[in-house]
């Protein structure tokens, strides 16, 4: 009897160990490319092409970073990207807060239908919009300006709108009703009562907005041809396209690391918001 129970316990522990082992090896496999990127970015040329691959840089080739980052003006690319990303976050917050509040707090004819229409555009393949959008910006003489990347964000995005509306719906009406009775204007109520409560949702929107803008490649590539307007994403792509760069892996990885680190940092600081955002959008069935 005792032996039997022990056997069950052993089996249970063994299966637990197997599950953990599986999870750990999967997790390592997922992180390995990033670890290798960092390691390779610090290796000398002689070491980085060695087979089997080396994991510990020896000697540590710090010079890869200044070499890679000054070969093309990455400092300028960073400033460009920061400007675009900052403006996009501002636009996304402004337009989607207003629209989400409009959908969550007011009743007007056709409201729910409009909301569903907005949401369902998320299911339309965006590539079909590419050419007319380009032609529109071309006609406005906005090609080779940051406007095509920034202006659309001031006109709402279904995904972020949905996220914020869900949050606003959870704020009790009593709070805003009381403010109405006290005679606050609509915008003042939104600004002073609703937004302070919605800080977590605003953070989530800002993070998703940052990520999308920082990572965007197709937009900058199509709308910007002037080298001085390049974003980091475009810069990395051009860097990769330089002659001989196909074999200068260490510098390529140094430039990649520099592009990845800011996003990783934001992720490390605000992981909770990433997960919440992703989960919230998946609740829709």
């Amino acid at each position, binding site marked *: 009897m005792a032996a039997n129970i022990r056997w069950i316990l052993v089996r249970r522990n063994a299966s637990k160990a197997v599950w953990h082992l*599986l999870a750990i090896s999967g997790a390592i496999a997922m992180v390995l490319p990033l670890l290798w990127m960092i390691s390779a970015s610090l290796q000398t040329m002689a070491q980085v092409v060695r087979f089997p691959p080396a994991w510990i840089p020896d000697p540590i080739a710090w010079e890869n970073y200044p070499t890679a980052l000054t070969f093309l003006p990455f400092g300028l690319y960073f400033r460009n990207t920061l400007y675009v990303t900052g403006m996009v976050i501002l636009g996304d917050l402004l*337009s989607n807060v207003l*629209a989400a509040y409009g959908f969550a707090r007011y*009743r007007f004819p056709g409201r729910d239908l409009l909301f569903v229409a907005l949401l369902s555009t998320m299911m339309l393949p*965006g590539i079909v919009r590419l050419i007319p959008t380009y032609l529109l910006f071309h006609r406005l003489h906005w090609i080779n300006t940051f406007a095509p990347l920034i202006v659309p964000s001031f006109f709402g995005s279904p995904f972020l709108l949905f996220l914020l509306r869900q949050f606003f719906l959870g704020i009790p009406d009593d709070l805003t009703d009381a403010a109405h009775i006290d005679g606050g204007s609509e915008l003042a109520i939104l600004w002073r009562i609703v937004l302070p409560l919605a800080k977590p949702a605003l953070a989530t929107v800002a993070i998703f907005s940052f990520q999308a803008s920082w990572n965007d490649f*197709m937009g900058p590539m199509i709308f910007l041809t002037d080298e001085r307007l390049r974003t980091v994403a475009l810069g*990395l*792509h051009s860097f990769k396209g330089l002659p001989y760069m196909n074999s200068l892996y260490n510098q390529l990885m140094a430039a990649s690391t520099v*592009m990845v680190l800011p996003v990783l940092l934001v*992720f490390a600081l605000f992981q909770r918001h990433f997960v919440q955002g992703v989960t919230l959008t998946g609740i829709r069935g």
Partner: protein
Amino acid sequence: MAGEERLLRRREALYGLLFIAPALLGLLIFNLGPIVAALFFSFTKYSIITSPSWAGVANYQKAFSESLVSLSFENTAYYAVISVPLGIGLAFAVGMLLNRIKGAPIYRTAYYVPCVVPSVAAAVIWLVMLNPSVGLVNYFISLFGIKGPGWLIDPDWAKPGLILMSLWSIGTGMVLYLAGLQSVPEHLYEAAEIDGARPLRRFWAITVPMMTPTLFFHLVMGLIASFQAFNAPFIMTQGGPVRSTYFVSLLIYDNAFRYFKMGYASAISWILFVLVLVLTMVVLKTSSSWVYYEGGARGRF
């Protein structure tokens, strides 16, 4: 009194419309407008320098007769049909695994991290990962005494290479499944266990049905995204070798921005648009037979 009520109502509606006005304009200018405009341009010959001239269905006739077009659609379908189910299966499996063990938050972080890596950086990293002679992937294969394939330089292996890379970002799906699994009511499993249902039976009778809304969502969004895959093939292979990773998105890009055939490119993008829409509709239509909504609430947001 009734008049005052109506006034209040009207005021409320006005405010509501005012608040959503930018988003509505955005819907028209940057979303629906361009889609309709693309349909119009698809019936014209348009090279930007000259104004569009009516061409009837010539663009569509050309698209349906060109072998490069059918090849790009085949490539895209191959990629989508394999990478989407694989991604769903793997994300679901990892979600199940993490739901079962302690310490899930740490693992969850590790599995999700690749999803925040910018696609250009991911493409550059995987270009080296998949390098046949110095890449990590072939190194790990070589540990089993097998010589790895040429991946992105071999026409037969380039698409599998891109599919393998796409599995690096299963994290988003995994987070969804993990959240879904954690919200399956425990009492369902307890009841099944009392009834003597074995683990496999519990999986098929409880877990899978409860997860079908998430699976369905993932399937639809995954298909839509993979049919438009652009960054990885554009950056890593430029459609090669021998056009083996020439996807529809690259065909559209080349025609629009290399050859300035805006009309022709619009026609191809509308063919892709209709194809994806039909696929989505098929999945939606069949969903009633396999997607289970608890409490019968359908179409809720």
